[in-house]
């Protein structure tokens, strides 16, 4: 198990270095000299040169890269080119927002997805199963932002149950926080619920037809106990999908954060891209990769615990 953990950690660190390095050079190639965009129309060449010196853009690219990498290794992602604030602080402010929505959406997807998946697995061809099939087609066809706008129109503007935009920190008000993340989480989770339910349903039916299940039934075990055994054997694939969904939801959060005006890492990525704020983009890339690595690492641990054969891979 220890070898398994070390292997996963090393590959995670390698991935982090590779992705952030690639992003660094790609961003510098794509954005180029940012001073015109950052200073606006009226900057003189001298003022642009002063800003280049201030942000260290006048140094050779490799020197900049090494400087960034060595500082990032200690958790220092530098300062934003737009507002000269530490990137780490800005990301730290925004991570809780995105995590609030993504974790809530993942929990919703997990709970409802498992419930629906099990019901469909127990009664294939039933009403719920047919509704799930229809929902999977419809929800994948609908764009995320459209679903979000429909939710806002109904629940925020018409019924006024939830705020249309914005985020309330749980420090300020727990109920306010829950209300502010409700609609974004629901709109983010809809597709994931269907996906997990389908995955679990198919896995459930596959396992339910295996010989050992027939043996369990023949031995007179109750339906509930048989279902538990079936679920445990069908769960790895659903768990994998859930972890992948979590990573996917991080990406999907961009749209939701814009529609609901949430100050998360998705909206920060968008604004940093627009003005070419490379330090912020790099910090966000690093943080996102860390999330992905951690989620995958935890998934591997859980799968390794559920199925020891996985540890040898």
């Amino acid at each position, binding site marked *: 198990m220890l070898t398994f953990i070390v292997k996963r950690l090393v590959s995670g660190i390698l991935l982090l270095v590779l992705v952030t390095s690639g992003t660094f050079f790609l961003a510098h190639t794509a954005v180029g000299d940012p001073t015109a965009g950052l200073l606006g*129309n009226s900057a003189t060449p001298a003022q642009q040169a002063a800003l280049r010196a201030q942000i260290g853009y006048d140094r050779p690219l490799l020197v900049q890269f090494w400087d960034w990498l060595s500082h990032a290794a200690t958790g220092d992602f530098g300062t934003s080119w737009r507002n000269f*604030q530490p990137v780490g602080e800005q990301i730290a402010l925004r991570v809780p927002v995105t995590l609030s929505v993504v974790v809530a959406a993942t929990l919703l997807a997990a709970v409802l997805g498992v419930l629906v998946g099990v019901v469909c697995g127990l009664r294939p061809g039933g009403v719920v199963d047919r509704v799930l099939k229809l929902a999977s087609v419809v929800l994948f066809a609908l764009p995320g932002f459209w679903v979000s706008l429909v939710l*806002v129109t109904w629940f925020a503007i018409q019924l*006024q149950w939830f705020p249309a*935009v914005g985020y309330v920190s749980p420090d300020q008000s727990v109920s306010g926080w829950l209300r502010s993340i409700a609609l974004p989480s629901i709109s983010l989770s809809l597709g994931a619920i269907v996906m997990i339910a389908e995955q679990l349903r198919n896995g459930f039916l596959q396992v339910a037809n295996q010989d050992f299940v027939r043996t369990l039934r023949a031995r007179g075990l109750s339906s509930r106990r048989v279902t538990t055994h079936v679920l445990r054997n069908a769960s790895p694939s659903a768990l994998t999908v859930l972890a992948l969904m979590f990573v996917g939801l991080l990406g999907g959060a961009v749209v939701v954060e814009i*529609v609901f*005006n949430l*100050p998360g890492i998705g*909206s920060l990525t968008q604004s940093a891209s627009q003005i070419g704020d490379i330090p912020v983009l790099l910090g966000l890339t690093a943080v996102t990769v860390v999330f992905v690595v951690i989620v995958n690492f935890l998934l591997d641990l859980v799968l390794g615990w559920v199925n020891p054969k996985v540890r040898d891979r």
Partner: protein
Amino acid sequence: MTRTRTAALFAAAAAALLAIAGCTGSGAAGAGAGTDELKAGVFLDVTSWDPANADIGFDGPYLSAVYDPLVALDKDAKPVPALAKSWDWSADRLTLTMHLRDDVAFDDGQKFDSAAAVENLNHLKAGTRSGQAYTDVKSVEAKDPSTVVLHLSERDDALLYFMGLGRSWMASPKAIKANSLANGPDGSGPYTFDKASSQPQSQYVFKKRAKHWDSATYPFPTVRLFPITDQAASFNAMLSGQLNVQFANAANLPKAQQNGWNVAKKPASWVGVQFADRTGSQVKALGDQRVRQAISYAFDAAGILKAVGNDAGTVTDQLWPSGSQVYDPAGNGKYKTDLAKAKQLLAEAGYPNGFSLKMPMSTIFQAWQPAAEQTFGQLGIKVDWQNMSMPDYQKNAPTYPMFLAVIAMDGNDMATLTDQVTSSQWYNPKPSVDAFPEVKALVQKAEQAQPGPEQTAALKELNGKLVDLAWWNVWYQADNLYFSVKGITVTPITGMMFPTLRFIQRG
């Protein structure tokens, strides 16, 4: 000279894109938009609490809450007293003497006086962003505790305007020295920043200061500012009652009227084609006045304004804002759409079959690309569009002979001359005034004229000449729009993407 128009570009482009496509929840949902407190949706988040690093575009409402300016602007964008009670220019207009208030203190208890003003002005002059306003200021000195003197290296008739626009916010000298303004404001403004109730990048809350020298100008006991870039989200917040003022999208005008909201608008940016190569050094054809005129005649500006700009603007050939003293309504329509005349002019210039050139393109300009593509095609002008990101557009556009432009305008006529004609900017890389002796003479006449009617007359003459020469191909001047609920009025100012708090009143 001193503008940061990135925000303007984003704003204009966002509005255009949305036209084609279509608060944090601390307030109780369903509470409706009352007017007991101001809840304004601003397009962008505050750039910095340090006035030296702030952006003029959208930082105005944030900074005007917590800082007092030396100079403010009135509804016509004319400089009016603030912390500077009055000022005098020397006869040669190279020395500006300002007389300061003596009843103001900063959050940290420090008194505002000439030493504080000097500290601030030097800080602003040294600032990478704010320094653009003080290019012509050679030095600043305190004459006595309530008098400060600015010495200019050359005459700058737009200096007071830029100071009023957002380049003279006075912060605590202690905070400047401690370099702590980036972490939070320390000013003497009408409001204090309520950090505990604020959620950075989502909602900023300000409470009215108990005693302020200009208290009557700020009627709201609480001000909440919400940075909301997405216009649909902002409009939804307005509909749900989370906002009572918003930076608006013209596409939502009918719904705003249905809701009985107030609509305020003011010209904010000009939209059209910028001829960067008026001398023909890159593309010979553009050096010919007839070719530039042909392009101006060919575009259906009214159609573009309707289709892309939701009719929120003024079709004009001029670049001085409509409604300004220099703007001449009678001079409009010189380049009324006339494709036959355009082709005739091209033929006379020796380009009956057009010519070829490269132009930059970025996502936010794609709204106007089909119209440009079609019009150039009708003239036989073959455009090879070079796609690039927005930061790259600002960086690379100046290297192209001409490009599509959405450029913020100024509310001051001399600032317009400086920003749009005489100084080198990314959107005006080669001012080329020297290459046109008649233009140069008129520019000098305006620069040397006495401010007031004499200068306005000279600028009018120059404006007419520039339109004749097809200096630019202005299609229209796009308005910035602001919706507010009944009981709150917004007075927009050309030059401010979002007006400072003094321009948002009850009524």
